[in-house]
Every structure is written in C-alpha cells, then in structure tokens.
C-alpha cells in the first residue's frame, strides 16, 4: 500500500469518527483497523503489545500523581493562602485583584500541572470577588481563563509529560524550558491589566503593607516551596520527574493533613478515585495514539509528509510558524492532550528534518496548544470561567481576544528566539545538548 493512500485512509477515517462524536482515543484505534486487515504483515495483537510497551514508560506515572497533588492542594485550601499572599504583593497596583489573579495562577502553576484545576480552583474564589468590586464580568472571565493557561506552561505540566512520553523528549529539560516563557506570558498579561485598569478605572485592592507581605508570606511559604522541591529535585539529580510527582503528593498530604489540618483522612479515597478517572482517560489516549503513531511510522507516512511539505523545510522559523497556526486551529476545537496525541507524531518528523531543536518544537507546541484552552468553541478554561461568572463565553470573547493578542506576541518571540526556551535547560542540564 502506498504511503499516500494509507495516510488518506487513516486520517480521513479519524476525522469522520471524531465528527461522529466517537471519543478521540477510540477513534485513533478504529482508524487503524482497516489498515490492519489490508496489510497482513501487521498482526492486530502486536498493536496491544505496542500499547503495553508505551505504558512501560515510567514517566507516565507522574500524570496521576501530579493531578492528585493539585486536587489535594485545592481541597486543603492552599489556593486561599496563595491569594492572600498575592494580594499583599500586587494589591497596590491599579486593577489589584486582576493582578492577584495572574500572580496566583503563576504560583499555582508551579504546584499543579493542569490548567483546568487552576481555572476552577482560583476562579471559584476570585471571580465572585472581582465581580463584587465592579470589574466587568467579561474582563474577569478573560483574566481568569487566560492566566490559567500558565498551568501547563510553567512546570510541572501534565501536557509536557504526555509530550515527553509520546515523543521521547526529556521531561526534565521540558520543565526547565517552560519556566521563562510561562513567566513572560504572566508578565505580559499584567501589563495588559494595567492598561485595562487605567482605561476603565479598576480599583486598587490594598495599600502597600510590608507587615502583610511578611504575614501572608509566612502562611503560604510552605506551599510555595513545592516548585522548588520539584525543579530543584529534578535539576539536582536527586529525583526523577516521576519521583518528584510522588514527593509532591506526599508533601501536599503532609500540608493538608498534618500542618494545616484542612483535609480529612476520609476525603482521600474520593480524591484518589477522581484523579484516577481523569488520568486514565488521558493515558488511555496515549496508548491508542502510540498504536496510531506506530502504524504511521511503519507505513513510512512521516517521510511522505516531509516530502510533500518540502517547501517549508528550508526555514525552520517559517515551518515553526506554520506549525503554530496549525496547533492554534486544532486547539480551537480539541482538548490539548488529544491534540498532542494526534498531532505530535505527525509533525515531529517534519520539525526534525527542518533542523528545529526537539525542545524548541515541544515548547512551542505545548504553548500554542494551551492557547486552545481559551479559544471557542472548545476552550475548557474559558468555559469553566464563564460558568463560574454566570455569563455565556461568547460575551467574554472581546477581552479574551485582547489577552490572546499579547500572548501570541510572546509566543512569536519564543518562535523567533529559541534561546528564550532553551537557555535555562542548556545552563542547568548541559549534558542533554
């Protein structure tokens, strides 16, 4: 069978099945079936073998653990402590509460690896508070949803783990590469908030109060210690990313059960179950994607795509921009994890043959897909934030657009200057380069 024909069958069927609302993970397995029957050299049992092999990757274990840690921290009221601290350091800026929203998202992103946990946890507290202080609902929704995107860009990040698991990119290096871009996105959002606050007269939240900084800082210092444990542990070679995820779980249990007493032991089984449900549907998609990716590679489809898209390969930057646009489009209607699972293996050979560094490709991919969390029709963080504020997500679109605009500028800078992402991992993990 020619690579072109095989690709048309596999991709065409995938799209049809997805339109029929068959879950993405099942669609991937279904789309491979006809090939298995046409191509007698691939026995179906081998596909199950492939799936098992992909689960042998130790790093995937950190997906349930990082999710569990975020759930426990949310349930233990850590978010409230972080908000009090953020109020004390940026509350004096015009549009104080909006800045608090961005800063808390940044701090929480360093603890949790998922943006939806961020949007739900922070939104449920800050959105009502902002509306009470006469912030426009659409702006409130926009700032909550857009800042929660940092959850998957600032380490730890479930999306980076999935990316690393599928494409064999070092998760430790990915975590480091996401740090500066994530902070840049947060700062660009705060600049935009100042602009909004000046134009619409949003209030200052609190006066400068150094005692307050000290007090709230002491209250939340243990929680803010988490990113240091994760990053420090991984970079220092003390723990692997997987082990770091377990340490985070143990640490969050310690904070919730022993130190803050804000969590009850009998609540734990429910957190275990909810975490396992979410983690397993993500990892099941990783498994069927590895089947799909393996068949693609077996039929030499990546090579076929590379030769078809030859024109863009001359300029890595141009190709990366094309990939960004593709990811942004896919992100509008698809969740980030299935999008990584489908698009990653297809585009990786292209990026590789154009000479784009795998880490650079990964960071640009993770960031552009994460923007899909705030773009309709399927932008999960936007939907969550609109739901909490009680408005239709369409009403927030104009303000979301303004945030998206500055975020895309930052993303473009990262595309053009790979050093923004690569500098930190090159500095701290030189053996990877």
């Amino acid at each position, binding site marked *: 069978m020619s690579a072109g024909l095989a690709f048309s069958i596999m991709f065409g069927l995938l799209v049809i*099945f*997805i*339109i*029929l*609302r*068959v*879950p*993405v*993970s*099942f669609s991937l*397995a*279904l789309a491979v*079936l006809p090939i298995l029957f046409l191509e007698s050299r691939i026995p*179906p*049992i081998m*596909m*199950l*073998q492939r799936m*098992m092999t992909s*689960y*042998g990757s*130790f790093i*995937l*274990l950190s997906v*349930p*653990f990082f999710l*569990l840690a975020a759930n426990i921290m949310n349930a233990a009221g850590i978010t409230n402590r972080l908000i009090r601290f953020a109020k004390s350091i940026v509350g004096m800026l015009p549009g104080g509460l909006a800045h608090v929203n961005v800063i808390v998202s940044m701090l929480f992103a360093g603890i949790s690896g998922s943006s939806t946990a961020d949007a739900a946890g922070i939104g449920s507290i800050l959105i009502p508070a902002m509306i009470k202080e006469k912030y426009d609902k659409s702006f409130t929704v926009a700032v909550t949803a857009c800042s929660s995107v940092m959850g998957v860009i600032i380490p730890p990040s479930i999306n980076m783990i999935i990316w690393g698991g599928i494409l064999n990119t070092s998760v430790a290096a990915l975590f480091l590469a996401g740090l500066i871009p994530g902070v840049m996105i947060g700062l660009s959002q705060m600049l935009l908030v100042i602009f909004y606050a000046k134009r619409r007269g949003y209030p200052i939240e609190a006066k400068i109060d150094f005692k307050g900084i000290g007090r709230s800082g002491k209250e939340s210092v243990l929680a803010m210690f988490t990113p240091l444990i994760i990053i420090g542990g991984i970079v220092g070679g003390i*723990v692997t990313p*997987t*082990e770091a995820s*377990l*340490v985070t*779980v*143990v640490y969050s249990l310690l904070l919730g059960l022993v130190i803050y007493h804000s969590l009850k032991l009998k609540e734990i*089984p429910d957190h*275990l*179950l909810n*975490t*396992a*449900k*979410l*983690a*397993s*549907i993500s*990892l*099941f*998609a990783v*498994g069927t994607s590895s089947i799909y990716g393996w068949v693609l590679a077996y039929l030499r489809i990546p090579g076929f795509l590379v030769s078809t898209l030859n024109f863009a390969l001359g300029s890595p930057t141009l190709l990366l921009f094309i990939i960004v646009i593709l990811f942004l489009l896919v992100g509008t*209607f*698809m*969740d980030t*994890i*299935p999008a990584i699972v489908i698009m990653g293996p297809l585009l990786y050979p292209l990026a590789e043959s154009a000479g784009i560094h795998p880490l650079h490709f990964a960071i640009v991919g993770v960031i552009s897909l994460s923007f899909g969390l705030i773009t309709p*029709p*399927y932008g999960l963080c936007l939907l969550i934030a609109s739901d909490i504020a009680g408005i239709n997500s369409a009403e927030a679109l104009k303000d979301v657009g303004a945030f998206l605009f500055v975020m895309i500028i930052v993303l473009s800078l990262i595309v053009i200057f790979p050093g923004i992402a690569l500098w930190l991992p090159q500095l701290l993990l030189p053996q990877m380069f």
Partner: protein
Amino acid sequence: MFETFIRIYKRILEILIMILMTGLLIAVTLQILGRYVPFIPRYIWTVEVVNITLIWVIFLGAAIGVKESRHFFVDFLPKNVGRGIEMTSRVLYYTLMFIITGVFIYYGYRFFLMGYVQESQATGLNLGVVYLSVPVAGVSWLLFLTSNLIQEIRERRHS
C-alpha cells in the same frame, strides 16, 4: 435488574481503582526510599508492581470513563442538525463503539492467552496477570455501552 447490576459492577471497579491507586503510591514510595534509606532493601518487584498496577488503573478507569461518557470527544455537529442526521450519527456511534469493543475483547483474550504462557523477566510473574486487563476492559465497555444505549433509547422515547 440490569441497571442494578451495572451500578454494583461500576462501584466494584471504583473500589478496585482506589485500592490500586493506594498500592501505586506505596510501591513508588518504597522504590524511592530503597534508593536513599540504607535499611530499606531495594526491592526489584516494585518496578514491576508499579507498571502492572498503572496498566490496570488505566484500563479500569477507561472502562468507567465509557459509562460516564468522560472520554475526550469533540462536538463538531451543530445542535440542531435535524432528527434524521442526529439519529444516523448516534447509530453509527454505537456501531463503531461496539466494533472496537469486540476487537478489544477478541484480540484481548488471545493476547491474554499469549501472556499466560510467558513470565516477566524481573520476578517471573505470569504476564497473563497484566494482559488480562485488556479483555476485562473490553467486557466492561460492552456492559457499560449496552447500559448507556438502553438509557439513551429510553430518554429518546420520552421526548
């Protein structure tokens, strides 16, 4: 009768998942401690137990995900496409889901038989224990899909 069975079956899977998750946490903790604390032996079995447990959590969780319709899907079709198209798409949806379920049950069972005569390298554990998760997931999908289908037909009759 069938509904009650499904409810109990799902609860059993949920309890199993909670136990497996606890096991996962303990096994990985032992693994790390084994490296850093001198008096805790470096158990080899932890690596294998962790892997097997994770695989079972994924397949059991994927089964519950079918019952709760939580697997990631994309809503392309507009809300009011007309009854004919809506019905056709639902029939095709269930047909496709039952096909892939059948594939997982049939080949999963053969996969299990294949694993049943193999032993793992590190601890000599029967690989059937691992591969059994695939046909178990398949049968669970069959039960949950049937239950969802019955529910959907009932709801459509009402409206």
